[in-house]
């Protein structure tokens, strides 16, 4: 028990020291920008201080939230799919899916305290969860404390994945199958940003969280799956995990990020009794987002390392990796005369995930191409063609294809 308390105290003290030291150091080498984040709690729809959002499309960058009362804003988004999927010449999942219905609520409690939340209803209410519910205490643009149910800053996509913003019907494989977007955890930490050079900036987020639990193995029938280790609403091992992301943006249309999540996932000590070896799960992600000649190009690459119990070696994977790269080109603005703000977009994405780097099989790779129509910026009709290959543990090949039509809108 004493060891646990000492470990938690040391962990939190270390986190605090890292955050404060980092903030001080960054403060000394860079000039803080005037405001940390876009503020949507004023008049709703297009409220913008003129500053760049902390994460484009992320928390506090919900441009379509509507103000209700003096300081609270509400909004959300909805998403529905029509799917036609085939595997090796046979129909697979086909039909209609009320995919998501998410509600946002945020409030500016005071000049220094804000609260934001997102409640998600997935698959027609089959899964309901608090995806985000956190309090921010803003000390300075370079330092704010955040506590609550946070979105783990593990890759940019986990921080910004609203369906009306995501140009593709499905999220990337690496996001859904490896990282487990939306990865949200109870946590406590800090975030901030610094101006670097002319027009550039560095943002950071770092938190201590409850981390993954051993569901990533014990509930995982398809082999190691980090998403099945989510939902650690109560700490399972008195050992915090740490997650953080640093992003460098030399100019508004370019951002490069590195992030990592590390911590023990299993119960190795209970009431002072050592009951197992400590086993860690570590995920590292690099991401980028750039506008190149009018084409938005973004992507992420992730690598996960999971320490596997000896009795499961060879069955459960200790090493996974994944990547996606996508490009979106907007065209035809106002082409529909009755909708002058409307746009079209052509899009392509390549993504892959290797669930077990020690095997030649157990992987998925797919290519997606399609076109979108946005009658206005907040709504999108997406048409996707997906062609993919799946390899089982024996490296046997399966072919998959899908035609996806979806509609998503902020409200």
């Amino acid at each position, binding site marked *: 028990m004493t060891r646990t308390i000492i470990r938690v105290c040391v962990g939190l003290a270390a986190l605090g020291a890292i955050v404060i030291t980092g903030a001080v150091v960054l403060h000394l080498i860079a000039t803080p920008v005037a405001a940390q984040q876009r503020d949507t709690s004023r008049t709703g729809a297009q409220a913008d201080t003129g500053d760049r959002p902390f994460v484009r499309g992320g928390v506090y960058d919900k441009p379509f939230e509507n103000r209700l009362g003096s300081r609270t804003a509400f909004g959300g988004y909805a998403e529905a799919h029509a799917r036609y999927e085939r595997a090796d010449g046979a129909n697979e999942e086909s039909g209609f899916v009320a995919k998501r219905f998410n509600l946002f609520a945020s409030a500016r409690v005071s000049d220094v305290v804000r609260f934001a939340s997102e409640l998600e209803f997935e698959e027609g209410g089959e899964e309901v969860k608090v995806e985000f519910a956190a309090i921010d205490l803003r000390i300075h643009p370079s330092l704010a404390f955040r506590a609550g149910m946070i979105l783990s800053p593990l890759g940019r996509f986990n921080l910004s994945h609203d369906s009306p913003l995501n140009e593709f019907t499905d999220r990337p494989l690496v996001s859904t199958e490896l990282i487990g977007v939306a990865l949200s955890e109870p946590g406590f930490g800090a975030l901030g940003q610094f101006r670097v050079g002319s027009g550039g900036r560095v943002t950071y987020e770092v938190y201590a969280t409850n981390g993954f639990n*051993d569901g990533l193995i*014990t509930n995982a029938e398809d082999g190691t799956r980090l998403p099945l280790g989510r939902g650690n609403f109560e700490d399972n091992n008195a050992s915090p995990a740490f997650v953080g992301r640093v992003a460098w943006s030399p100019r508004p249309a370019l951002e490069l990020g590195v992030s990592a999540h590390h911590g023990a996932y299993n119960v190795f000590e209970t009431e002072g009794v050592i009951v197992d070896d400590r086993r860690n799960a570590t995920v590292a992600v690099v991401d980028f987002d750039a506008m190149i000649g009018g084409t938005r190009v973004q992507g992420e690459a992730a690598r996960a390392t999971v320490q596997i119990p000896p009795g499961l070696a*060879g069955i459960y994977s200790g090493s996974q990796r994944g990547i996606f790269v996508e490009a979106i080109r907007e065209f035809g603005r106002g082409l529909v005369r009755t909708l002058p703000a409307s746009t079209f977009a052509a899009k392509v994405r390549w993504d892959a995930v290797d669930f077990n780097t020690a095997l030649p*099989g157990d992987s998925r790779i797919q290519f997606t191409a399609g076109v979108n129509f946005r009658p206005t910026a907040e709504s999108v009709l997406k048409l996707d*063609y997906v062609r993919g290959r799946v390899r089982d543990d*024996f490296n*046997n090949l399966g072919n998959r294809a899908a035609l996806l039509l979806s509609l998503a809108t902020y409200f």
Partner: protein
Amino acid sequence: MAVGSFACADLLTSAPGEGDTFDAPVEGLTAGERAAFVRGDAEFGRRFSPASGLGPVFNNVSCASCHSGDGRGRLENSLSRIGSAADGFLSELGGPQIQDRAIPGAQPEPVPAGVAVSVRLPPPVFGVGLIEAIPEATIVALADPDDANGDGISGRPNWVFAGAYVPASEPGAGTGLKLGRFGRKAQTSSLLEQTVEAYHQDIGITSEFRPTENRNPMSGLPIDALDAAPDPEVPTSTVQAVVHYIRALAPPAAGALTAARAEGEALFTSIGCALCHTPTLTTGAHKLSALAHKSVPLYSDMLLHDMGDALADNRPDGSATGREWRTTPLWGLRLMRQFLHGQAFLMHDGRARSVEEAILQHAGEGLSSRTAFAALSAAQRAALLDFVESR
């Protein structure tokens, strides 16, 4: 129109050619039988986790994890068997099968030193329903235990006891000795028993037939405190669905019999391969009518043969001695490499990496055929190998 259809079919994936897989159903199933087949397919592929009952000790996480595409397994999927009826299957050491993996907290079983260990590669599961439907009399009629005809081949059946839990309605069930058909030594008479034991021994899944967890006898861990899934971990309906699925799996189609292969087939017969690898047997009546009265091109007599010292595992099983093995069916060899990432694993433990290697490892009753094969010209050997690998 035709071009458009082709393009569309290709864009939305196309099915493998007919007869080019190990997981297709036999022809002639009713709609209800096909529905049960589909459910059994899902259960066959279902991977268990510790939360859903895996272990406490086990070898793999699903049926499909050992049988690639429902065909044979690879070396990593091999199982280690120890003991025999005479020594109680060395149950105090983890026999009859060593479970080399365990859920967190439990201890896998080590391969014990100083005892004979029989390594078994998972065999294909397609076609077992047709094998089940071959009348006992047909197989017994092929036996020649005393080599009365003087051809050097003395095949005999493996007479075994069925598990007491096997319902009387199942083929191969009942008291007394039954004809063994399944397994490397034909040590099992019933598909249901084969399935129940695979769940129990290979995956650590209990059923109403085998309701008690398989444990590591050398571990003092109170395993019930770690295994959270209540027993039985699968219902009888799941076992029955999987039995129906494998029973209804069709063998893949053989390749075209070209002129060269016809020459190879003639050599296959002339040097004596076909004396054990009987090209075709015919099924009799069966409760699954799609299996009844069918010609079965399995290339096996389903009998035990002495294969010599080098292949002996020195582990009796049923009435099979430590030198005897059931003649392995050759069907499906055409697709073997396709489902093993270009590799071949032959013989009971996968030691042969090509058909030619497998032939050259035959001894005992197979020695004369091996010698005759070695004496063939290179072109003749190639023709024979091409024929065998086209089955």
